[in-house]
C-alpha cells in the first residue's frame, strides 16, 4: 500500500512540475481563442472557431500582420466560468497572447471580461449577447449585437407587420431568454403592442402544452419565443398539435432549430433575427460564404461563424495599425470603422457594435431564407 501511495505521489509531482514548463517565445503574434468547444453548447464555440480560423488563415496567406504570422491558441471552457478564468491565465501567462477572442457564451464571457479587465488585455467576444459583459470594461468588445438590441428589433419588426397582440413563451431561469423577454416587453410597451400572455417554461422541459394552451386561450396574433433551437423545436411541434397557428418570432439562439425539427414545414411559420445571413447581398458577405464553403465544405449556417470572422477582422486590423501593445490595440479597436461580413462595424460608448440586423425565415425544406437586412 505504501508503495502505491509513493507511486501516486511521484505521479503528482511529475504532473505539477510539467505545468511549470515555460512557453517558448516565437516570432509570431499569438491570439487566445477561448470558448465552449465541448459539451452542450459546443456547436456555437466550434462555429466561432471556424470563422476565426478562416480569417487568420487568409491573413497569414496574405503575408501575415506586419510581416508576422498570426497563431490562435484555442482553449476549451466546457461552458464554465471557472474554466474560462483558468484558460485566460493559461493563454496570457503561459502562451503570451496579445489579445483574446472569446468567450462564446455570455456567462463565460463575463468571467473572462472580469479578469481581462484587471490586466487590460484586449478581448473581443463574437457571440456574448448579454448586456453587462462590456459594462465598465474599456478593453472588452464584441462583434455581435445584444439581446436587448435584437429583442427590440423583433418588437419593431412585429409592429411594422401590424401585429397588435402578442404572447411570449420564455424560460425565466435562463439569462438569455429572460433578458430577451425584458427588453421585448419594454419595447412593446413603447410601440403599443399588447402582451396578452407571458408564460415561463424551463429550459430542458419536454412538455410545453400547459403553457401553450394558456397562450392559445389568450388568442395572440404572434408568439415571441426567446429560446434556443432544441426547445423551440419541441414548442413548434406541440403548438401545431394544439392547433396554435400563428407566426412565431425568435432571436439569434433559435437559428439552429433546423437540426431539431423533423417536420421542416413547421419552420415556415418562424421569423428570427440573426447576426448574419448566408443570403446577405453585400459583396464581402458573398465572398465570405464562398470562402467558408471552400474551406469547410459547408455553409456558415450558424451566424457566429460570421461574427467570429468579423472579430478576427477587427482584432487583426487593430494590431496591424497599432502594434502589439495591449493599450494601443484597445485604442485601435475602439476606433474601428470597417465593413465586415455582418455589416459595417463601429463601436458605441458601451463597446457594443453598431451594425446590421438580419431577419430570416425558412422554406418548407428547412433552408434559411433571407428576409431583410436592417441597417442601424
Amino acid at each position, binding site marked *: *500500500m*505504501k*508503495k*502505491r*501511495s*509513493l*507511486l*501516486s*505521489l511521484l*505521479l*503528482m509531482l511529475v*504532473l*505539477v512540475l*510539467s*505545468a*511549470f514548463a515555460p512557453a517558448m517565445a516565437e516570432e509570431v503574434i499569438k491570439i487566445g481563442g477561448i470558448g465552449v*468547444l*465541448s459539451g452542450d453548447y459546443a456547436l456555437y464555440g466550434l462555429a466561432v472557431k471556424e470563422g476565426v480560423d478562416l480569417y487568420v488563415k487568409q491573413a497569414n496567406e496574405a503575408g501575415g500582420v506586419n510581416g508576422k504570422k498570426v497563431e490562435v491558441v*484555442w*482553449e*476549451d471552457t466546457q461552458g*464554465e*466560468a*471557472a474554466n474560462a*478564468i*483558468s484558460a485566460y*491565465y*493559461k493563454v*496570457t*501567462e*503561459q502562451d503570451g497572447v496579445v489579445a483574446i477572442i472569446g468567450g462564446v457564451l455570455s*456567462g463565460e464571457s*463575463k*468571467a473572462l471580461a*472580469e*479578469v481581462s479587465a*484587471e490586466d487590460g488585455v484586449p478581448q473581443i467576444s463574437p457571440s456574448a449577447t*448579454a448586456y*453587462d459583459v462590456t459594462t465598465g470594461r474599456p478593453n472588452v468588445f464584441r462583434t455581435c449585437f445584444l439581446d436587448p438590441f435584437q429583442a427590440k428589433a423583433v418588437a419593431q419588426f412585429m409592429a411594422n407587420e401590424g401585429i397588435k397582440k402578442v404572447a411570449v413563451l420564455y*424560460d*425565466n*431561469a*435562463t*439569462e438569455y*431568454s*429572460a*433578458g430577451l423577454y425584458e427588453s421585448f416587453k419594454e419595447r412593446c410597451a413603447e410601440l403599443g403592442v399588447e402582451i396578452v400572455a407571458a408564460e415561463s417554461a424551463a429550459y430542458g422541459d419536454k412538455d410545453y402544452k400547459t403553457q401553450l394552451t394558456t397562450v392559445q386561450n389568450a388568442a395572440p396574433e404572434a408568439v415571441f419565443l426567446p429560446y434556443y433551437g432544441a426547445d423551440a423545436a419541441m414548442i413548434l411541434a406541440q403548438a401545431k398539435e394544439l392547433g396554435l397557428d400563428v407566426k412565431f418570432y425568435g432571436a439569434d439562439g433559435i437559428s439552429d432549430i433546423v437540426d431539431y425539427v423533423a417536420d421542416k414545414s413547421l419552420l415556415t411559420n418562424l421569423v428570427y433575427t440573426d447576426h448574419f445571413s448566408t443570403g446577405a447581398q453585400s459583396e464581402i458577405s458573398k465572398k465570405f460564404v464562398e470562402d467558408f464553403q471552400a474551406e469547410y465544405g459547408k455553409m456558415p449556417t450558424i451566424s457566429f461563424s460570421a461574427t467570429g470572422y468579423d472579430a478576427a477582422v477587427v482584432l487583426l486590423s487593430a494590431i496591424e495599425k497599432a502594434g502589439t501593445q495591449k493599450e494601443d490595440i484597445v485604442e485601435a479597436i475602439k476606433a474601428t470603422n470597417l465593413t465586415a461580413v455582418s455589416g459595417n462595424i463601429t463601436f458605441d460608448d458601451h463597446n457594443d457594435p453598431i451594425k446590421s440586423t438580419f431577419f430570416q425565415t425558412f422554406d418548407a425544406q428547412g433552408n434559411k431564407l433571407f428576409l431583410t437586412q436592417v441597417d442601424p
Partner: protein
Amino acid sequence: MNKKTKSILLNILSIMALYLLITILIGTETMNNYISNILVTILITIIMTASLNVTTGLLGQLALGHAGFMAIGAYTSAIFTKTVALQFSLSLPISLVLGGLVAALFGMLIGIPALRLQGDYLAIITLGFGEIIRVIIENLEITGGAAGLTRITRMSRAFSEDRALSSVIQFSLVFWITVLIIASIFTLGRSRHGRAIISIRENVIAAEATGIPTTRYKLLAFTIAAFFAGIAGGLFAHQTSILNAKNFGFNKSIEYLVMVVLGGMGSITGSIIASIVLVALPEMLRGLAEYRLVIYSLLLIVMMLFRPSGLLGTREFSMLSFWESLERLWKRLFKRKDVPTRMPFQPRYDVWEDKPVLEVSKLGISFGGLRAADNVNLCLMNDEIVGLIGPNGAGKTTIFNMLTGVYVPTEGEICLLGKRMNGQQPHDITRDGIARTFQNIRLFKSMSVLDNIKVAFHSRMLYSTLSGILRDNACLSEERGIDIRARELLRVFQMEDVADVQASALPYGQQRKLEICRALASNPKVLLLDEPAAGMNPMETSELMQTIKTIRNRFSVAILLIEHDMKLVMGICERIYVLNYGKIIAEGTPEQIRNNPEVIAAYLGSVDAQPGEVRGTAHA
C-alpha cells in the same frame, strides 16, 4: 522522540515547507497566475471532497447534493461582501464564516428528516435538495436570478495593489483555511465522536446497541460537512467573481463524489490526492484539445477497474509512513549487500488424528441431463493413500475436477480440514492445500524443469510486483529461498541433474515425475494423482509405486489417485473407492474390493449390470 511526536512534527514541517515554497514561487512571480489560480482551485476542491468524505466516507451515507451546500455558501458569502460596506480583508473572513453557517443550517434542516432514512433514500433526498437549491437561486431576485451574481470582488487582486502580493495573500488564506479544515476533520475522526460516526458506517445496529445516538451523530456529520462546503463555496465565489446556479447542479455534486470515490471512501488523504490529480489532470492535458476529456474519462475507468476501493481505500497517507518508506526505498536502492535468504512459507495445516483431511459428502454434478457424479461420499485420513477406480467414463476425473475447483458441484460439500471449498477458484484451492496432476501431462513445456517447480511456489511467496521490478531485498531473498527448495525437491525425485533441461525434452516417465514434483512444490496437504502410471512401462510403474510411498512419508500428504493399473492400485492403496456411473459402488481394502461381486460385475459385465469396458491391465 516517540512515533506520535515524530509524525506530528513531520506533518507540520512538510506543510510549512510546502507553504513557504509555493508562496516564494508566487511572490517572486516564478509561478504565474495560471498556476496559482489552479492551486487555489485545487485547495477549494480539497475542502469540498474532504468534507463530502465526512458524510460519504466516515459516516457511510451517500449524499448527492453536496454542491448545493457549496452554492449556499457561495451566494451567502458573495452577497455579504457585495452589500456590506466593509474593508474587503475584513468582510471576506466574516462572509466565509457566514456562508459556512448558513450552509450548516441548511445541512441541519435537510438532515433532520433525511437522516432517518438510509442508503438510496437519503441519496435521492440529497439529490432533490441540490436541485431545489439550484432552482431557488435561479428564481430569487437577490441572487441575480438566471444571470447569476457577477462582479464579485476577486481575492487575487483585492488584497493589495501589488499583484504578486495579492496573489500570495489569496493563496495563503485559502491554504491555511484548507489546512485548518483538514486538520479538524482528522482530529474529529480520531476523537470519541469520530469513532461514533465511523461505527455508524460499519454497522448501525451494533452502534446503536453500544450506546451511540446514531441519528444525532449522523446529523453532526452532515452539518459539519455542509459547514465546510459552505466555506469552500465562499472561497470559490471570490476566486471566480461570477456565480451561476447552473454550476452547482447535479453534475458538480457527482464530480466531487467521483473524486471521493476515486481517492477512497473514508480516506481524507485519498480525497486530497484525488482532488489534486483530477483538477490538475485536465489542465495538464489541455494541449491534447478534444482528446483530453476522453483520456480523462478513460483514466477514471481504468483506475476504478484496478483500484475499485479507490486510491487509498479507507487508509490514510501519513507523512511518517511516507518518510519510513523513503528510508526503506533508500536502503533498498543503495544498501543491498547482505541479502538474507527467505524460504517460501509453509502453510500450517491444522491436522489431528481421526479428523479427515478431506471430506466429501453427497457430492453431485449434472451436465444438462447427464448425471456425472451423484451422492459421492469419500474421505481421506491423514497421510493415507487412497485409490479411486472405476471403468472409463465412471466420473473419476470429474470428481477430481470438482475437488480442485475446475467444476462447481451442483450439490454436496467438499471440506478440506473442516473448511468448505465449494465454489472456490482453483488457485485458491491450491493455496489452501490441494494439488493435482493431470491425466494427460500438463507441464510448462518450454520452461526449464527448475522453473516448472518455481512457478508452483507462487502461492507461497510474498513480495510485490514493484519489488520484482526493482529486484529489491524482498525479492532477492525469496527467490534465493525457493531456488534452494526447488532443488531439494528435485533431489528427492533424483532429477537434480536435469534441473536446467527444458521440460519437453524429458523422457515420458520423468515428465510424469516432474508433474508430481511440481504439485508438491505448493506444499499441499492433499495430492490428487490422475492416472500417474498411464503410459509407463512395468519398470517405470514399480519405480513410481516406490516414489508415491516416499512422497507420503516424506511430505506428510494424503494421496488420492485414479489409476487403471490394478497392480499399482492394489500394491500401494490402503483403501479403495470404486466408482461406476457417477456413484460409489464399493469402498474397502484392496482385499475386500478384489472380492466384491458388484465391482466384478462393473468391470467384467454381468446379466443385471451395464457392461463396462475391460482394460488389459485390470486384473480385478
